[in-house]
């Protein structure tokens, strides 16, 4: 069993969830919505640089060689060399070179899946943005932007190309200032010719996002949907096909990492093919599948929760600690309340 430190935080998620979902369309629609609840003290010049980088990622044609490095929960490190080729209007072609154990692989991320307007509002809800000087990356002059936690620690560093605005390097750090993930462009060719072929599309979402009102209706019916999990903000809600019924897919981000929470009503059944083992995360025993991204599973209050996370481990701890845990209250009064709620939901033609 892997043990991680836990932070116990009691969250009244139904109320908080509704409030957050009311703000969801604003967050998605406009960066100005981030004025509410932002960490104060950001340098506007730093925010503008990141907005430029988010836009450049979509509008520039370029080819690049990138080194990607991730640290998993057990301290292991996985590194990959990718060749990126962005075709404006079409998407980003990603190639992974052949290694001794795997053949070359490829995929295409569709242009339409990007939401550049999300980045700065999400970052500013958790971090203070500041300029961090200039340096050279891949032989190109770049300006460093820092994302600082409210307590003063650095959560991430961004290196933005002075000439094109393209993000050249990014590092995410945990609370102990250790780099837990990094992406760095080693060579960049701007205005490169379009890729000579387009490989199969990478997975795309099959269902649209729910409106704020529709998402709030799920929360009103008792589904767990907190507005915030640790430093992460809820920015997307949709339904997906679960194991037996419809599952709710909640997506959170702080602009550095993304965490998905899948919620399905029912009783958890563990089968060997799931490949899970017990782990203590955020002070709670859950089932964990190894690898990146983190995959954590548990049951609580008649729901089965599955967390898929790209976040550092300390953020995973907060996420797990702030979601519901434990079985249903077994007191007679709680049972009667639960039953009354269920009967009312059966009788509700809109339920």
């Amino acid at each position: 069993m892997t043990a991680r430190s836990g932070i116990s935080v009691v969250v009244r998620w139904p109320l908080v969830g509704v409030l957050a979902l009311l703000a969801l369309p604003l967050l998605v629609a406009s960066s100005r919505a981030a004025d509410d609840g932002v960490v104060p003290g950001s340098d506007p010049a730093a925010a503008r640089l990141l907005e430029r980088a988010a836009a450049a990622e979509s509008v520039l044609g370029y080819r690049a060689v990138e080194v990607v490095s991730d640290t998993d929960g057990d301290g292991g490190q996985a590194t990959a060399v990718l060749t990126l080729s962005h075709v404006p209007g079409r998407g980003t072609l990603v190639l992974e070179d052949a290694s001794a154990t795997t053949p070359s692989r490829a995929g295409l991320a569709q242009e339409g899946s990007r939401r550049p307007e999300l980045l700065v509002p999400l970052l500013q809800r958790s971090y203070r943005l500041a300029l961090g000087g200039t340096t050279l990356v891949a032989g190109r002059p770049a300006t460093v932007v820092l994302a600082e936690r409210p307590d003063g620690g650095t959560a991430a560093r961004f290196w933005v190309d002075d000439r094109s605005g393209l993000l050249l390097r990014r590092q995410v750090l945990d609370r102990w200032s250790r780099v837990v993930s990094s992406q760095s462009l080693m060579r960049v060719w701007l205005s490169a010719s379009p890729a000579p072929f387009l490989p199969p599309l990478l997975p795309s979402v099959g269902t649209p996002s729910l409106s704020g009102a529709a998402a709030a209706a799920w929360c009103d019916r008792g589904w767990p949907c907190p507005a915030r999990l640790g430093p992460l903000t809820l920015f997307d809600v949709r339904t997906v096909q679960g194991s037996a019924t419809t599952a709710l897919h909640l997506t959170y981000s702080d602009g550095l990492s993304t965490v998905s929470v899948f919620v399905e009503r029912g009783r958890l059944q563990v089968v060997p093919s799931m490949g899970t083992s017990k782990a203590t995360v955020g002070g709670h025993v859950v089932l964990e599948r190894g690898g990146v991204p983190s995959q954590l599973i548990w049951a609580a209050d008649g729901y089965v929760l599955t967390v898929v996370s790209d976040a550092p481990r300390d953020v995973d701890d907060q996420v797990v600690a702030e979601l519901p845990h434990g079985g249903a209250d077994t007191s007679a009064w709680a049972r009667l309340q639960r039953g009354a709620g269920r009967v009312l939901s059966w009788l509700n033609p809109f339920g």
Partner: protein
Amino acid sequence: MAGRDRHPGDRLAALADGRLAEPERSRVVVHLAECPRCLAEYDTQLAMKGLLGGLSAPGTPGDLSARLTGLAADPHAAGSRRPPATRPRMRGGHPPQRSRRARVARAGAVGSVAAMLLVGVAWVAGGGPSGPTVVPPVDRYVREHAAVSVGVPLTEPALSQLAKGLVPLATQPAEAVTVR
């Protein structure tokens, strides 16, 4: 009526459903006017149907209450469908007119039964985790996660997570994978 001194039994449910035809319907209604126990059972059945169906009580004769009240207060007033000569006579144990005390007792009995019914339904419905058995489709969830995460620019999924969805290349185009 031949069976007016017998309790209607299953015919109460038929009356509540609106499935009881004349002249049986009138016979049962007359019996209800005279028998608090059957009237309480009838009210309970109506309450159950209304509760479980989320609908108004089905099959309730629109003028039933008025007729019952009328029968109790003035046998002649509600006897338009029946000659007075055929008006049932009360047997021993059934007072010819319900007193206020009897009505209060009946209302109390009905209320108690309805309350117990509601508590019972809530108790049964509230037992244990509900819903089907769930084996989370984690692999599919990881793909869904990557697909939504890529929308946030400059984040981990937009770069390295993409690699997790890559597919092997059967034929490797030389130009596309050339790294200078």
